């Protein structure tokens, strides 16, 4: 099983849209879409955990050739029970790393977060829901992970500049 894949965020998002998966973009890519100049190598998505959406997501993951990147030697793909849980699934796809999150921060799931999203045109006719910068900052402020908190000064300055513009 090849672990290293060429990252193509747009290609992953296109496959999910084609399968009509309900999701929102969070994490570093959301921050970049809002104008934060930071580098990230994985795509964090929060998905709806309804049975119908999990079915669509499973079909999309099959199309993406997704498997757990924590256990690349097994080539094992997530199943419905993984995707129905609030946990995070660290996956590798043929278009690069993908983190599927049932919930972020202190238990914020898709239904909770979708009201804090903006729909953005991200190119090639794709429009996706992106978590607002304010909410992204709030979530990172509430978690203790050092890597998440490290980006807070940059995110806060970006929000200030956006408000000033």
């Amino acid at each position, binding site marked *: 099983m090849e672990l290293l894949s*060429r*990252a*193509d*965020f*747009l290609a992953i998002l296109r496959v999910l849209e084609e399968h009509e998966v309900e999701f929102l973009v969070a994490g570093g*890519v959301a921050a*970049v*879409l*809002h*104008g*934060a*100049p930071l*580098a*990230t*190598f994985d795509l964090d998505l929060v998905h709806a955990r309804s049975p119908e959406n999990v079915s669509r997501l499973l079909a999309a993951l099959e199309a993406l050739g997704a498997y757990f990147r924590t256990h690349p030697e097994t080539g094992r793909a997530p199943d419905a029970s993984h995707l129905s849980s609030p946990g995070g699934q660290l996956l590798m796809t043929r278009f690069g790393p993908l983190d599927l999150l049932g919930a972020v921060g202190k238990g914020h799931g898709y239904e909770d977060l979708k009201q804090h999203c903006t729909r*953005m*045109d*991200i*190119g090639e006719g794709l429009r996706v829901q*992106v978590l607002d910068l304010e909410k992204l900052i709030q979530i990172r402020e509430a978690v203790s992970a050092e890597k998440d908190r490290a980006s807070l*000064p*940059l995110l806060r*300055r*970006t929000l200030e*500049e*956006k408000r000033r*513009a």
Partner: protein
Amino acid sequence: MGSEPVNSEAANKPIQAVSSQTDDGVDITLIRWMLSLSPAERLATLQQFITSVETIRGASLKS
């Protein structure tokens, strides 16, 4: 470029050493540049960055 008149006054003026960083170490000029782009252009910029890193990494692994 070469045929354009040069503003000699501006050209001779010494460039002030200006810090683009805020007290918390954030480069504000990069934020302003990113905000001047559309979301699609921002994503494309990130994508190009990753591709460049992967290309450099691939080259360094081969050498």
